[in-house]
Each structure stands twice: as structure tokens, then as C-alpha cells.
């Protein structure tokens, strides 16, 4: 019995040593991520170089076709259109969200009565299920919905637009929906950054004679630049993935004129079942995003490390 206790004690001792403790902490994360990430990486590469569709039966016997899928991808006009459309949405939406978010953060930086309630009203869109936001804006932009009502009362009946008929107005509707849901995210980042700033430098600038605008331009904004950068990078990458809003509001229509990259991949893979081709597209997208985020994060790494 005594020997058993001795073994147990040394095991416990081993168990407690820092190195063992350190690796044990990270183990669950590694297990989960490896389970979820590694096999799919292998599969997507395998799929991209064969030609397989679920209807052809088991994917293990699929014929090897080399880079055909990639060739087809780079020759596919619909892919480029979807990519172009996604870029347009990202650039316009994120730019407006950045300006609105910053303006709101400055507006809210000075305390006023009821600031807490107003802040929570501004933050709630971010929490909503994307599908609900999509559906709500779908209702708003209906031919006889409130938006057209406002337009008609302003510019008369001719001012009304049937939003989901023409591609441009459909995309504008989508962008407005995205702005409404994600301006709060940019607001939150700027608002917390302004809050975290030390107060002393601003007061010092005041005693040196700086007006509130000069304080913002020379002191406040430069100091929150790292956070602004992070906010923009994260929001741009997140917006690039836009799917729910488009799926609910326009379903990619009219025709494929508002189809974004994610919707295109979804259609090709899960509607038309061309999984090999979709795998090729997925690889290209994954690689480009990895490159972009690696580049975008590097200046930040220099700053933080």
C-alpha cells in the first residue's frame, strides 16, 4: 500500500510540474481544432484535383483530373463578377461604417443624461441574428414598404423604386442593411478605445492652449490609431464573408446580379453539387484570405510584440 501512495505522490508531483501543466491546458484546444481543421484541409486539396459530385457515388473512386477545376475557375466569368461585387460591398460598407462609427463614438465621448440607454440601443443591431436583419430590411424595401412610402411622399410617386428588381438598387439595399447592423461594431471599438485613453495628456494639451478639435486631431486620434487599424482589418475580413443578408433579401437575384462570393460557392457546392469545383474555389479563397490577413496583421504584430 505504501508503495502505491509513493507512486501516486510522484505522479501528482509530475502532474503539477509547470511544463506538464502548461501543455495540458492547451491540449483540449489542440484536439478540437485539429479534429475540425486538419482532415478538411486534406479533403479540400484532394477534392480540388479530382472530378466528383455526390451523384457519382463514393468520392474515393473519383477520377483524377489534375488542375482542370482551377482552369475552369479562372475562366469562369461568374466567379469574377461575384468577387467584384463582394469587393464593392466590402469597400463601400466598411468605409461608411468606419466614418459613422467614429462620428458616433465622438458624439458619445462626452457624458450626457441617458448615455447608457442610448449606447445599448446603438449596440443591439450587432447582436441580432443576421437572418432577422435580412428579413427586416427585406420588409422595409418591399415595393409598398415604408422606404418607398417615404420616397413617394418626398419625390412624389415617380420617386418610388422597386428595390429588388434592378441589380444596383438591390446591392444598395444590401449595403444599407449591412451598415445598419455593423456600424455598432465600429462604434464599439472606437468608443472603448476613447474610453481607455489616459485623461492627463488631453488636459495637458488644454493647458497648453489646444482647442477640443486640435486635441482630437493631434492627441486623441493618433493614440487610437492601432485600434482603428485592428477594427478596419477585422471588419473588412468579416464583411468579405457576407452571405445571410444576401441569401434572405435577394437570394442573389435578380438572376445572379447580386450574388456574392460566399453565395456563389454555396450555390455551386450545395445546389449544383459540383463539390470538386467548389473545393478548387474554396482553396483559392482560403489562400488569398490567409495571405491578406497575414499581411494585415504583421504591422500589428510589430506593434504588440
Amino acid at each position, binding site marked *: 500500500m505504501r508503495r502505491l501512495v509513493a507512486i501516486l505522490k510522484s505522479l501528482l508531483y509530475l502532474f503539477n510540474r509547470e511544463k506538464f501543466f502548461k501543455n495540458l491546458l492547451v491540449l483540449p484546444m489542440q484536439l478540437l481544432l485539429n479534429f475540425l481543421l486538419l482532415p478538411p484541409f486534406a479533403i479540400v486539396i484532394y477534392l480540388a484535383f479530382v472530378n466528383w459530385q455526390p451523384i457519382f457515388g463514393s468520392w474515393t473512386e473519383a477520377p483524377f483530373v489534375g488542375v482542370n477545376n482551377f482552369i475552369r475557375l479562372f475562366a469562369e466569368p461568374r466567379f469574377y463578377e461575384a468577387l467584384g461585387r463582394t469587393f464593392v460591398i466590402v469597400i463601400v460598407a466598411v468605409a461608411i461604417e468606419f466614418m459613422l462609427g467614429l462620428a458616433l463614438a465622438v458624439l458619445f465621448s462626452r457624458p450626457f443624461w441617458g448615455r447608457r440607454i442610448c449606447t445599448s440601443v446603438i449596440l443591439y443591431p450587432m447582436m441580432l441574428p443576421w437572418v432577422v436583419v435580412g428579413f427586416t430590411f427585406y420588409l422595409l424595401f418591399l415595393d409598398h414598404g415604408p422606404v418607398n412610402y417615404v420616397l413617394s411622399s418626398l419625390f412624389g410617386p415617380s420617386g418610388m423604386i422597386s428595390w429588388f428588381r434592378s441589380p444596383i438598387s438591390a446591392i444598395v439595399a444590401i449595403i444599407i442593411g449591412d451598415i445598419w447592423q455593423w456600424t455598432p461594431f465600429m462604434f464599439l471599438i472606437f468608443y472603448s478605445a476613447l474610453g481607455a485613453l*489616459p485623461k*492627463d*495628456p488631453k488636459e495637458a494639451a488644454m*493647458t*497648453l*492652449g489646444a482647442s477640443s478639435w486640435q486635441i482630437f486631431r493631434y492627441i486623441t486620434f493618433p493614440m487610437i490609431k492601432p485600434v482603428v487599424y485592428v477594427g478596419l482589418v477585422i471588419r473588412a475580413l468579416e464583411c468579405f464573408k457576407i452571405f445571410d443578408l444576401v441569401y434572405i433579401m435577394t437570394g442573389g437575384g435578380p438572376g445572379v446580379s447580386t450574388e456574392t462570393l460566399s453565395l456563389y460557392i454555396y450555390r455551386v457546392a450545395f445546389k449544383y453539387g459540383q463539390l470538386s469545383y467548389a473545393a478548387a474555389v474554396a482553396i483559392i479563397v482560403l489562400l488569398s484570405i490567409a495571405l491578406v490577413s497575414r499581411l494585415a496583421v504583421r504591422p500589428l504584430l510589430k506593434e504588440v510584440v
Partner: protein
Amino acid sequence: MAQAGVLLLRLQNVKKVFNSFVAVDNVTLEVAEGEFVCFLGPSGCGKTTTLRMIAGLEMPTEGEIFLREKRITYLPPQQRAIGFVFQNYALFWHMTVYENLVFGLRLRRFPAAEINKRVHEIAERFELMDLLKVRAALLDLSAMQRVAIARTLLIDPHLLLLDEPLNNIRPGLREMMRADLKRMQQELGKTMIYVTHDQEEALTLGDRIVVMSKGKIEQVGSPQEVYDVPATLFVAGFIGRPPMNLFDVQYEVENGHSWLVWRQHRWCVDKVRNQIEAAQPEKGLVLGVRPEKLKISYEASGIPAKVLLVQPLGRKDVLTLDLEGTTVHGVIPSELRINVGDVVFVEFPPEGMHVFSTATKGAIVHGIS
């Protein structure tokens, strides 16, 4: 009651209340041109709040502030041209030292050549020449402090306010920087108001010291006055380290003579009898004697006391004595060899005996000789 010299700043019944907490209570003060005034008091006594009201960073609830007889009570800080050095220096961390220094001048649209001349002039005096290109966040503490003062001086302020600037600098370096600050102030003749909780710092720096407690001014006086003639029990206890020894004594008149009695010891106070009697001695008196003034020796000529602790401080030793049950502090030159456990004799020097009224906490008489 400002000293001789042109009146620069006047505070009149200034009061500041932070939702029901009275931070500053009816402060009236005058500061003359070229003076070095120290606000001294424990943390939370309202000294920093008063400083911030002079700079315009806080607005008083009541009272007025005048700068050269011009009312500036509600003027924003931008228009007061009053320099403020913060406790953690408040430099523009993302800018270089040069950009910090020129910030004020650029706002005033000074010509570039003029700015350059002035900056290099003051960088020379503050030994910042080789730090001009360094980012403020990477400086060491004393450099940060020098940049903070230089930056403020460059806008040639009416007066300079400093909020415990030497607080996080280690003792050895701190003495040197105090002497530099004092010398620079005398050379530039710039009026300064310096806030500190360290009584030694206030005594060595201030031409005049404003002792504050719980938002009120306890006493305003030269370092000599607040040390030798403390106006209240608080000032007596706060100035001087180790603090003044205090004894509850009774006032008795016996066969024509007036005595202060403590336990079975008595001291004749005939010379100051009328002052004491004018302050209702029956309400209770407090006798205060500074540890440095106590005569401590082995000859049997005073009250016996046992030495509990010897705390050497280099050139002098602080003794903790048990005088008939009450703890008393004494100070002796370190050459005098006294060690723990000895019995020594303590004599109260008549000229060093301060008498306070227990009721009003105010001083009645200083020295009964």
C-alpha cells in the same frame, strides 16, 4: 497677506463640492509674483483639486479666482496661459520629445525659426539635447519630468502649477531634482505652486507653505513659521518627522503660580499665564514638544524613560521611548551611543513647549520661557 511683491493670483472663498463631498472648503489665498508656494497635506485634503481649479481643469462650486486682478474663475484652461505639470507627466506618448516641446508654440503660430531657437535654448538648460528625437513613452522617469516642465515653460505661462511631480522618483535622485527645481525657479523668477504630501519636500522647496486638511487651509506661513509656530494641532502633528509628542495636560493655579500638570510633573507657566487663561484652559490643554527639542541624556535631570527602539537615520538617530506608559519619540545625534533597553532622562525645554486648546485645536502659546 501676500508677501511683498506684485499680487499675481488671488483665491476668494473658493469652494468645490463633488456630489455632497466637500473637497475644497472656503479657501482664500494670495500669491505674489515670483513666489514658490507649496500646498502641503495628506492625500485627499483637496490640494490637487484647488490646483486644478486654478488651472481651469475644474470649476469651483462657489468663490472667485483672480489672475492679475482679472476674473478667470470660469475661463477655460486654454485661455488662462497657466502651466500645469501632472503627477504622471501627461506627455504626448506617441510623439517625440521635440514634438512635445513645440506643441504649445505651434498652437500659437510662432514662426519656425523662433520655435527652434526657444526649444534648443530650453533643451540645453534641461539636458534634453540628445533626447529630442526619442519617443516620449521610452524616456526614463527623470527625463519625462524634465520634458513635462520644459514643455510648459515654453509657452511662458503666468505661473507654473506642479502636482507632486517628484512622487515616483527614487529618494537619492529626488533631492538633486528638488535642488535643480528650486535653483531654476529662483533664476527664472517664475511663480510656482507645488503640491506635495511630503512635508520634507514642502519645507525645503517652499518660500511659503499652505498646510491643508479636509479641504480647509490650516495655516499659511514660511517653512520656519509652520515648523516653529504651528497654528493648529494638525499642523504640529503633520510637520516634522518623527511627529511632535503630544500630552494631555491640566491647567492649575496654586499659591499664586500657574502650572501645567501632567501626571505628577508640573511646569510653571506664569510668564504666559494671561494667554493661557484667555483660551478657556478648563476645556483641556494639549502640550506639544518636538522630538528634536527634547533633551535626552544619561544624567538624572529629567523624567526617566526606557528606550524601546533605536532607528538610525544616518546623521541622527530616532529613539522610541516609554515615558511612564506613553510612547515618546526623541532625536539624538548618531555619535551619542544609546541602545535599546537603557534608561535615559528626558527634559522638556521651556522654549520648545507648545500649548494647544483641546476644544479649538488651535495654538495658544509657543514656548513658556
